[in-house]
């Protein structure tokens, strides 16, 4: 291989030297206006291009050298005062060259001047040139020769408005010319596959792809022809290009050219010729990556649709969606071996398309999802991670578009697609759904939708069969379950009946979650239920909920940390309830305080108990205000804090958490401020002094957090004092 490259370098160097050598004599001939010599040496120079030893890349280098020289020669040819031969005669003269390749390069060069001279119609000259070029059947040499022809003729096509415009049908002549050159170039290009220089298939394909733009350039030229309007594109250009694409039966060429067509011609043309363009797809070789072709087409059309709302009626008029949908169906059907990722990618593109073009047509979305389900159900198990990614993209697209899960919930095929995801991806998707709901603050307000929603996110709600529990990441799990908990709050309906249904559904789903999930989800459910019950003034239901909550607390929540969380939730909830009568309320508060005092750690007990103080003081218009029991709670909290302090002393010989006292102090101040007569300024004063003493005591560990906490609490009091007015007066009596 190394040798091959070295040899090639050598051959290239020889070729370049040959060109330079002959170009030198050619320049001399040009300078002395010697046409004969100029022709002789230019032909010899061009003979270097007859080599078969170079790869396309190297040949290109050689070609470019010759190309530059031909530009000089063309200038000389153009100036007949220098050589005294008319362009017509020159056109014959260059054809005397015995070797075909130099002859045709020279012919094209003179042909270019011939057209410029307008001594013959451009179309005649072009037709002659493109016909004569048939003589070169060698793929690489032919491709470069014809690319030279394309290059020199680009600005001389008898296009509308061009100075070379002829009589009627002049554009047709230009189009015919380019199409013919394109067809011949493509044939040569395809032929390389079968008889080209490369021995190894891979190498050959690489070499071919290096040449693809030479072929594609023709399509670009076609797209630039002014006179190619939609009509002509539809009637002539596209059918003839496609004919060549289909007939060449070469996968590389078909893929490249289809893509090329899509990229070079305007979107509105594609839209108006969708049927023709799509019709070609099933006729392509089975190895052609049609999905990418179609995806790109749909991407382009999607962007076109997004560019302006003015174009949308066009899409409707041509029934773009159903055509694309049909085409995709056919392609997937025809290409049995297409990997799942391919098919799904196609559906994603189609979905993107319809979301952009017909955002109002949910049925389209559902149809695409349905087609995808059909495809997926033929696959025993989707294991390809790329395919999985595409499914996620497929499912995410409608969420992003509508910013509203409610819309997605009406898609009957949505959950069916989700069923095909693996466990991990399913969860991921469920998270995406929940995040979407959160982000958009969407409220799911009917039981049916809630049912569908829970069906969608069931991966988070319960253990899936076969899931490897050990693999679960603790962090992720928490994150997931917290999300579910948050989600439950988004399910709401003012109608008590519907709300009840919703709650029942949520309950049905969450209850199967198992002990790991329940601590996260149940509280939300309880809240939700209580909010409903509270709102509806149905005391017995609310009471029942609470009872159940306590039962759950007792029976299901074993972990002490979870208990703390749960009891705080219960307290918080109970505090907000205003539906209960005195008796029920007493029972419940009693229970709550009871559970609080029985928590495992003293600190937790303390905090739960002082939290319970709020159960007796609701700062509402007609909320309960039982100052005495508030004080009782706080005192009890103080006792527990003291006990904690002593326990710490015994256990470690050092002080316990002073911050507990500061926290309790804050509660005192709160109730003091709220006007609880049982809380006196002297009590506060006493507590402050007590804390100060505790802090200065030797046995207490310096605790910067507690210090800061206390300091800011005192600063608050100071601030309130300075405020003046009623509040200021109140605080006046506290001496710091």
């Amino acid at each position, binding site marked *: 291989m190394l040798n091959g490259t070295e040899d090639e370098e050598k051959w290239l160097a020889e070729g370049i030297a040959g060109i330079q050598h002959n170009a030198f004599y050619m320049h001399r001939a040009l300078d002395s206006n010697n046409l004969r010599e100029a022709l002789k040496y230019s032909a010899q120079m061009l003979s270097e291009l007859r080599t078969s030893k170079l790869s396309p890349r190297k040949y290109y280098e050689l070609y470019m050298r010759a190309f530059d020289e031909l530009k000089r020669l063309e200038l000389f040819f153009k100036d007949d005062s220098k050589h005294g031969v008319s362009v017509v005669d020159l056109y014959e003269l260059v*054809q*005397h060259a*015995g070797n075909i390749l130099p002859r045709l390069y020279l012919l094209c060069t003179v042909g270019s001047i011939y057209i410029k001279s307008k001594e013959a119609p451009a179309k005649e000259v072009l037709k002659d040139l493109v016909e*004569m070029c*048939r*003589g070169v*059947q060698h793929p690489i040499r032919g491709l470069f020769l014809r690319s030279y022809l394309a290059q020199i003729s680009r600005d001389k096509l008898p296009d509308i408005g061009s100075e070379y415009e002829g009589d009627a049908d002049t554009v047709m002549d230009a189009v015919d010319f380019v199409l013919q050159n394109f067809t011949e170039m493509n044939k040569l290009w395809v032929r390389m596959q079968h008889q080209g220089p490369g021995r190894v298939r891979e190498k050959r394909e690489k070499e071919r792809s290096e040449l693809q733009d030479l072929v594609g350039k023709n399509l670009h030229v076609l797209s630039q022809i002014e006179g190619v309007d939609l009509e002509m594109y539809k009637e002539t250009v596209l059918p003839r290009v496609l004919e060549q694409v289909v007939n060449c039966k070469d996968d590389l060429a078909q893929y490249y050219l289809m893509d090329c067509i899509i990229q070079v011609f305007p979107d509105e043309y594609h839209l108006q010729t969708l049927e023709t363009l799509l019709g070609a797809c099933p006729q392509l070789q089975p190895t052609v990556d049609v999905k990418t072709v179609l995806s790109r087409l749909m991407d382009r059309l999607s962007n076109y649709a997004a560019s302006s709302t003015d174009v949308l009626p066009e899409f409707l008029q041509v029934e773009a969606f159903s055509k694309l949908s049909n085409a995709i169906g056919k392609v997937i059907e025809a290409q049995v071996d297409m990997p799942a990722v391919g098919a799904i990618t196609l559906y994603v593109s189609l979905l993107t398309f319809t979301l952009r073009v017909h955002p109002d047509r949910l049925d389209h979305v559902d149809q695409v999802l349905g087609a995808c389900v059909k495809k997926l159900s033929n696959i025993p198990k989707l294991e390809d991670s790329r395919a999985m990614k595409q499914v996620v993209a497929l499912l995410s697209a409608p969420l992003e578009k509508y910013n509203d899960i409610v819309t997605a919930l009406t898609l009957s095929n949505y959950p069916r697609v989700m069923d095909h995801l693996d466990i991990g991806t399913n969860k991921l998707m469920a998270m995406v759904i929940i995040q979407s709901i959160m982000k958009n603050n969407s409220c799911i307000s009917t039981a049916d939708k809630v049912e569908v929603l829970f069906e969608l996110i069931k991966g988070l709600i319960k253990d899936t069969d076969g899931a490897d529990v050990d693999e679960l990441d603790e962090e992720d799990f928490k994150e997931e379950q917290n999300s579910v908990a948050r989600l439950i709050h988004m399910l709401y309906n003012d109608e008590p009946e519907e709300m009840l249904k919703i709650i029942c559904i949520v309950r049905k789903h969450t209850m199967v979650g198992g002990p790991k999930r329940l601590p996260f989800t149940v509280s939300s459910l309880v809240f939700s239920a209580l909010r409903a019950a509270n709102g509806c003034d149905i005391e017995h239901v609310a009471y029942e909920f609470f009872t159940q909550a306590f039962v759950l607390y007792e029976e299901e929540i074993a972990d002490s940390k979870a208990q703390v969380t749960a009891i705080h939730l219960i307290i918080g909830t109970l505090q907000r309830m205003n539906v209960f009568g005195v008796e029920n309320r007493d029972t419940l508060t009693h229970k709550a305080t009871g559970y609080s005092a029985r928590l495992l750690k003293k600190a937790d007990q303390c905090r739960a108990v002082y939290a319970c103080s709020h159960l007796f003081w609701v700062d509402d218009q007609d909320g309960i205000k039982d100052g005495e029991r508030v004080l009782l709670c706080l005192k009890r909290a103080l006792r527990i804090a003291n006990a904690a302090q002593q326990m710490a002393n015994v256990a470690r010989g050092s002080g316990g958490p002073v911050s507990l006292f500061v926290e309790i102090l804050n509660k005192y101040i709160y109730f003091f401020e709220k006007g609880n007569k049982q809380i006196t300024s002297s009590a506060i004063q006493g507590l402050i002094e007590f804390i100060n003493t505790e802090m200065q005591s030797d046995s207490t560990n310096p605790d910067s957090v507690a210090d800061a906490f206390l300091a800011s609490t005192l600063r608050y009091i100071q601030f309130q004092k300075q405020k003046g007015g009623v509040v200021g007066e109140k605080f006046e009596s506290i001496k710091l």
Partner: protein
Amino acid sequence: MNYLVGAFKPPCNIFISFTDGRSRKQVPLKKENGKTVMVALFQSQENIVGEVVIEPIHGKKVEHNGVKIELLGQIELYFDRGNFYDFTSLVRELDVPGELYERKTYPFEFSTVEMPYESYNGVNVRLRYILKVTISRNYVSNIVEYQDFVVRNYTPPPSINNSIKMEVGIEDCLHIEFEYSKSKYHLKDVVIGKIYFLLVRIKLKNMELEIRRRESTGSGPNTYVETETLAKFELMDGTPVRGESIPIRLFLSPYELTPTYRNINNKFSVKYYLNLVLVDEEDRRYFKQQEITMYRNLEAS
């Protein structure tokens, strides 16, 4: 040496010129010594008019038995060197026997001379026209001077000029159809045509069109045939596939062609052929030769 040279030097110079020499078209003619000279061009039925000037070397007199000018049309076969066959011989007496002391001019004229054959310079044969001036002398050799001229005859375009169309091939290997638009071409003509590949199972490398000249001289067992390839014109580079058609456009003007000569005075023939040659990757050559008729066309020359 000078003495010797002087001794064998003819005692006079002879100049032969044509009356319309200045305006008459001159064409190149290759002489035996390889040099090319420009000579006057005539065609059959023309009057050949001119004058002969004899100029004795200073101070010498030339005795002679008469002066004559001959117009000769000769065919010279190289394998029979030295033997000229005169197919045309016309004589004009210019002077009666006498003596020449000074420069003397003799006008001459051959009217409507029949010159059916064209001048030709081939591999084994030459056909030439000359004016030969002879000063006959007694006891010493005659003084002779030659003046070549060239004859070319024009024919009108043929009324029938069919195309040449043919399908040839090697079974299951190569099958082509070719077409030349005409079978008769004038010397500045263009061969237009195409080759259509019906079946290609061999890897062709290129394709050429050759112009071949076949000159046959003599007759019977003494026939000599000489074939020259006058042009090799590449038509195609690379390997075509089935269905390809390759255009032919070959300008004949760059090549030194003559009209086709058929059995000129039973001495020789010159025929032209287009030879289509296909070369495969192993350098094997496949060819098909077709005769074409060349003619000289007045308008085109």
